[in-house]
C-alpha cells in the first residue's frame, strides 16, 4: 500500500476521515481543498512557506542528543526533536504559518481558531498579527482558567479570546463554537484548525504543514545518527505533532512508531483522554475516527492534566494507522507525565510542556528494553512555561 496516496479524493483514510458537516460548510470545504491543491503545486507558495519557516519560525529545529537522560534511563540512546524552540514555543506554528498563507490567498480578512492548552491560539494570534488579520480564538472556559499565561499572550498579540461555557468547557466545546462562528461568517473568515482532525481537507492540510518535522528528522538522523532511528515517540491528543513526525517515516518499515495518549487518572478509572486506547469508531467534529462516547453515542467528558491532550477524538489518520498496525498507541497517566516533566527539567535543563511529557514518560519505559546502539527520537512538541502554574497547583505550591 502507498500511504502517500491517502487520504483518497473523498478525504478518507480507509474507513476514517471524510466530511461530516452541515450542508452550509460543504462548498466552503470544497473550495478550501481546491485552493490547497493549487497552492501545493505552486512553487511561489512553497518558497514563501519555506522562507517563513526558516526566518520567522526559526527552522530547522535541532535534533538534540539527550546524553544524561540516555545514561539515566539505560538502554537506547535518547534524542529530542526540539519543536519547543520554535517561535511561540511549540510545533503548532508550523501549521498556522501555512494556513494563514492560504487564508491570505483566499482573500479572507479574519481568522478564527480553537485552542486547548493555548499553544494553537497563540500561534494563530501570532500569525494574524504578522499578516494584519483579525483573530478570534475560542477556548473552553476551564482551559482559560488553567492556561492563563497563554490567554494573556493571545491578548497581547491583539486577538480576542472567547471563553466557551457550553458542554464540558474544554477543547471539544471550543471546536464546536469555532465551527458555529465559521458557518455564520464563512464569507470573510478562515477557520485555522489546530489539530489533524475536523472535516476533509483539514486532517491532510494540518498533517502536511506539520510534516516539516519528520522531513527534517529524516536528514538530521542520517547526518547525526548515521541512519534512521529505531523508534519515534510522540504524544497524541488530536495528533498533529505525532502525524507531523510520523508521516514521512511511514514507508520506512524498520522505524517503530508509538503514539502516546493521555491516560489521566488511569484508563481503568474511565477518567482519561485516550480514544485510541479505550474508545471506538464514531463521528465527531466532521470526521469519522476513534472517539470516547457513552452507551447512547453521546460524547464523553475527558480528563488529563494536559489541556492540549484533553480531547475525546483523534485525527482520522491515526485511527487508520492504528487499525493497520503501522503505529502503536499507548497511554501514560498524569502522575507519570508529571514525573517525566520534572526529570527532563532537572537532567537536561529543558522544561517540557505537559503534552510531550507523556511521550518522555513512555520513552523512559521503552529505552531499557532496547540496546545501547539503538536510537529513540521523542518529539518534544512544546516548552513547559505555560504549565508551571498547573504543576505548581498540583504540587500545592502558590505562585504569585
Amino acid at each position, binding site marked *: 500500500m502507498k500511504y502517500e496516496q491517502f487520504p483518497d479524493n*473523498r478525504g478518507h483514510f480507509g474507513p476514517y476521515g*471524510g*466530511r*461530516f*458537516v*452541515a*450542508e*452550509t*460548510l*460543504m*462548498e*466552503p470545504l470544497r473550495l478550501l481543498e481546491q485552493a490547497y491543491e493549487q497552492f501545493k503545486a505552486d512553487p511561489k507558495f512553497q518558497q514563501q512557506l519555506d522562507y517563513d519557516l526558516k526566518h520567522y519560525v526559526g527552522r530547522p529545529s535541532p535534533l538534540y542528543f539527550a546524553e544524561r537522560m540516555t545514561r539515566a534511563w539505560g538502554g537506547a540512546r535518547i534524542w529530542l526533536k526540539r519543536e519547543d524552540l520554535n517561535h511561540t514555543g511549540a510545533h503548532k506554528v508550523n501549521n498556522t504559518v501555512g494556513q494563514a498563507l492560504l487564508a491570505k490567498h483566499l482573500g479572507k480578512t479574519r481568522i478564527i481558531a480553537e485552542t486547548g492548552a493555548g499553544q494553537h491560539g497563540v500561534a494563530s494570534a501570532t500569525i494574524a498579527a504578522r499578516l494584519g488579520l483579525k483573530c478570534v480564538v475560542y477556548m473552553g472556559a476551564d482551559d482559560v482558567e488553567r492556561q492563563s499565561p497563554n490567554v494573556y499572550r493571545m491578548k497581547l498579540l491583539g486577538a480576542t479570546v472567547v471563553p466557551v461555557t*457550553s*458542554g464540558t468547557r474544554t477543547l*471539544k*466545546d471550543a471546536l*464546536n463554537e469555532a*465551527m*458555529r462562528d465559521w*458557518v*455564520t*461568517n*464563512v*464569507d470573510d473568515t478562515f477557520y485555522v484548525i489546530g489539530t489533524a482532525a475536523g472535516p476533509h481537507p483539514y486532517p491532510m492540510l494540518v498533517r502536511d504543514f506539520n510534516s516539516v518535522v519528520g522531513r527534517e528528522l529524516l536528514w538530521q538522523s542520517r547526518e547525526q545518527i548515521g541512519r534512521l532511528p529505531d523508534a519515534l515517540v510522540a504524544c497524541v491528543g488530536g495528533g498533529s505533532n505525532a502525524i507531523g513526525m510520523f508521516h514521512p517515516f511511514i514507508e520506512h518499515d524498520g522505524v517503530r512508531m508509538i503514539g502516546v495518549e493521555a491516560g489521566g487518572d488511569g484508563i481503568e478509572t474511565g477518567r482519561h483522554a485516550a480514544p485510541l486506547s479505550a474508545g471506538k469508531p*464514531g*463521528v*465527531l*467534529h*466532521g470526521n469519522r475516527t476513534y*472517539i470516547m*462516547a457513552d*452507551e*447512547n*453515542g*453521546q*460524547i464523553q467528558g475527558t480528563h488529563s492534566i494536559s489541556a492540549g491532550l484533553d480531547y475525546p477524538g483523534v485525527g482520522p489518520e491515526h485511527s487508520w494507522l492504528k487499525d493497520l498496525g503501522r503505529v502503536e498507541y499507548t497511554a501514560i497517566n498524569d502522575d507519570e507525565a508529571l514525573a517525566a516533566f520534572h526529570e527532563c527539567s532537572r537532567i537536561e535543563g529543558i522544561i517540557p510542556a505537559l503534552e510531550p511529557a507523556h511521550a518522555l514518560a513512555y520513552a523512559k519505559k521503552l529505552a531499557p528494553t532496547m540496546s545501547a546502539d539503538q536510537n529513540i527520537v521523542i518529539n518534544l512538541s512544546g516548552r513547559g512555561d505555560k504549565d508551571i502554574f498547573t504543576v505548581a497547583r498540583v504540587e500545592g505550591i502558590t505562585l504569585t
Partner: protein
Amino acid sequence: MSRIASCLAAVKSQGRKALIPYITAGDPHPRDTVSLMRALVDGGADIIELGVPFSDPMADGPVIQLACERALVHGTSLRQILGMVREFRESDTKTPIVLMGYLNPIEHIGVAAFADEARSSGVDGVLIVDLAIEEAADFSSPLRAAGIDLIFLLAPTSPPERIQAVAAQASGYLYYVSVKGVTGSSKLDVSDVETKLQQIRRYTDLPLAVGFGIRDAESAALVARVADGVIVGSALVTEIDKHQAQPEVLPGLLREKLGAMRQAMDNEGRLS
C-alpha cells in the same frame, strides 16, 4: 406514497403551506415530550420535527444547545425517543414525524437496527444534520428499504451542481437553511430566500421547506409566501426554556404560539 409525501400533497391541494415545528425530545423532561407533540398538532402542525439531543450540536445556536443539555441531563436516549414516537402514534396516525439530529447517536445503535426500530415506532423521516450526500450511501438504502424518507439540507452556499445532486438523493421534502449560520439566527432575508428557492426549483419537484431564523407569526407568513413549508424551532424552544420550571403550562403556550403562526400563514395564503 410515504406519510410525508401524502401529507404535503394534501396541504398543497388545499392551497395551504405546511407548518413544521421542531422541539428537542426530552426537553424539558422526557415525560413532557408526547404531550408537547400533541399540543403542536393542536396548534396546527402538519409535520413534527423531533430533535434527537446530542452532546456536541455543532450546527445549533445557544437555544437548542441548551435544550440538548436539558434533555441529556435526564438521560434522554434515541431508543427512549423511539418509544415517545410509538406512544404518540397511539392517538395520532396521521401527522408525519421526522427525527432530526446528529449522526453519532444513530450510528451507535447501528443503521440497520435503527431503520427497523424507527419504522416500527412510526417514524416517517430522518434528517441527520452532519450527514451530507457524499457520506450517506450506507444510510440511505436501509432507511429507504424501511420506507423512511431521508431529508437533506440545502444552504445559501450550495452551488447548482450540489443542489442537483442533493435533490436526486432526497425524498419527502428538502430543508432549505435560510441563512449562513446556526439555528436561531436572526438574519433572515426573505428576498434572498425567494431567489434561491427559484434556483432550487429548477432541479426538483420536491416540496421546499425553509428553516433557521423564523421567529414569529410575521416571519412565518413572509416565508410561507415563497416556500412550500415553514420550519420553526428555536422560537418554540425559547418558550420551553423560559417555562421549564412549570412544564404544565407548556402545551398551552406552544399551541398558542404555533397557532398564531398557522393563522398568519393561512391568512397570507388567502390574500395572495
